[in-house]
């Protein structure tokens, strides 16, 4: 699997050069593989065998059988290994991850190392949070990074018997403030709010939700182009807990104001660039669905009109809009 590697035309000279370079590397790689399998099949569980896997994994971090063998060796000679060994093991995976941040097997081995770390489990996992902070600083949408962060957090919570939800909420807020299109952070915001509400960790829930409404209002006025914030807003509009917590009047106002704001942003964009904002139109559709569901009086329903517009404005997805049109009452 290769991603993002530019195609190049191989001339005969280049090919010959590559073949020559590869020849030596292949020979040493194959001999390492052969020695490793020999050791493994002879149940060789020694420190030297670990070093053999190090050399092999340096050449090929995707060789999961080598990682497996490495773990089996470590497990069987655990009592002979000091703290320095475990620290080095973390260093080893870190060096590897810097080179190959998308290789699952390295992440797995790092988790295994941390899980088996012989002392100070909590401190070790807390240190890991700094690592993942740095990683997400470099690449704020890194899929492995966010997954890893959730795992690290849940380990720390488990070991410290405390919840990090509030701290994490501040963290995702700062990530979104830095880049409003960070969908990974919006996703995590949903997870955190859902969890905080269900665990009763928010003192004044209504106040919290109202602040959240202000937050998204601000967000759409800042950047209404990107789909991230809109998916989040759809969640807010539809999430039953939020509807249940707000008074009927507050919830109706929330929908109405959101609709007005979306229409206003859209009108501004039409004035400014002559183009409609498709996401403003889409959110209005969602709001009207809810309003109909709640039997709210809808002043000037626009769904039909907007769907017909969207068929033209967003032709890639025109069949979805036709489907929604067919479902309108």
């Amino acid at each position, binding site marked *: 699997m290769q991603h993002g590697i530019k195609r190049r035309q191989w001339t005969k000279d280049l090919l010959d050069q590559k073949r020559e370079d590869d020849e030596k590397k292949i020979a040493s790689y194959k001999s390492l593989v052969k020695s490793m399998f020999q050791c493994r099949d002879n149940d060789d569980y020694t420190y030297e065998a670990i070093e053999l896997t190090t050399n092999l994994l340096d050449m090929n971090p*995707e060789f999961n059988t080598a990682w*497996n063998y490495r773990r089996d060796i470590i497990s069987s000679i655990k009592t002979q290994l000091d703290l320095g060994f475990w620290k080095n093991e973390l260093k080893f995976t870190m060096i590897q991850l810097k080179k190959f941040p998308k290789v699952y097997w390295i992440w797995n081995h790092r988790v295994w190392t941390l899980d088996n770390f012989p002392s100070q489990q909590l401190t070790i996992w807390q240190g890991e949070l700094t690592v993942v902070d740095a990683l997400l600083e470099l690449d704020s949408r890194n899929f492995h990074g966010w997954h890893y962060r959730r795992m690290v957090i849940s380990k720390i919570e488990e070991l410290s018997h405390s919840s990090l939800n509030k701290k994490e909420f501040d963290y995702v807020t700062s990530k979104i403030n830095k880049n409003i299109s960070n969908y990974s952070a919006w*996703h995590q915001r949903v997870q955190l709010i859902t969890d905080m509400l269900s665990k009763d960790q928010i003192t004044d829930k209504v106040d919290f939700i109202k602040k959240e409404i202000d937050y998204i209002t601000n967000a759409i006025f800042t950047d209404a182009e990107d789909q991230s914030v809109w998916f989040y807003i759809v969640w807010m509009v539809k999430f039953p807990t939020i509807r249940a917590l707000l008074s009927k009047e507050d919830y109706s106002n929330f929908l109405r104001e959101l609709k007005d704001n979306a229409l206003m942003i859209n009108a501004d964009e039409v004035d400014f660039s002559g183009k409609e904002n498709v996401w403003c139109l889409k959110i209005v559709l969602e709001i009207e669905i809810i309003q109909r569901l709640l039997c709210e009086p809808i002043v000037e329903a626009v769904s039909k009109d907007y769907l017909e517009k969207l068929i033209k404005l967003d032709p890639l997805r025109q069949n979805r809009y036709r489907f929604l049109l067919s479902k309108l009452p």
Partner: protein
Amino acid sequence: MVVELLKEKHIEYVKSLDSKTETLEYWLSEHLRLNGVYWGLTALCILDSKDTFKKEDVVDFVMSCWNDKTGGFGPFPRHDAHLLATLSGLQILLTFNSIELITKNEQKLEQILQFIRGNQLEDGSFQGDRFGEVDARFSYNALSSLSILGRLTPEVVNPAVAHILKCLNFDGGFGLCPGAESHASMAFTCLGALSIVNKLDLLSPDQIDTIGWWLCERQVPEGGLNGRPGKLPDVCYSWWVLSSLAIIKKLNWIDSSKLSEFILDSQDDIKGGIADRPGNEVDVFHTVFGLAGLSLVGFHDLVKINPTYCMTYDVTDKIPKYPY
């Protein structure tokens, strides 16, 4: 801009893959070899050229990847077994009408069933092997494997399904585990798994519509599909997104002719093969998923692919339907 599908070139490209032993990349990718063979073979099936691979050689190779200690297949001889490679091995055997090498061999069948079932965890999820990595991909691997073997059981299926449903997010996408961000590849693994065990009806019509919405928003103006909001398009999502839309019967929610253009434009018109996007280096992974995407939208005379199994219908017709 490449506008034709270069069928002959792709066949030649896939054929050439096994002769690249003088390149370092060939040896460094042993851990993906069985998957690679499945990708190549399925690409050939879509191009109606299965016989380009010599059946006996390929079947022998698959059986040489069998891991006698644990049961299951490794990706290469002597490598450890893993659910990822195990599914590829079974897919290849089924394609070459050789699945009986496992199903008619009592000891191997017992071992492989134990290997697959043994990796299911208490919450219904699956780990890829004994080292505990959990991922919805492995649920798909396990259920698809058991299905090919004709050995799905409610004891395995029901908890697996319960876990998969927990991977569905608020936005209509699926994550690799509960709480993980939506990713298009996970839509395929989760919907595919539900489809294999005939449990799609556990999703409400509203949920299906939301899933379809998130999926169709993956199409970007260039015509290609991305895997998450704000990401670049990539040919492999032609499969992950499109198969998912096909499974929920909303294939027409994206513009398939624009997608076809994007895939065609990602071909290498000199040596064949398809890349992740126009101008990039090709590989067999993007080649098969590009072709599979084109097959799903009914491109010319390509052999029809089954969106649930990612194998052509002539192959999947042999799989018994669950519940038995």
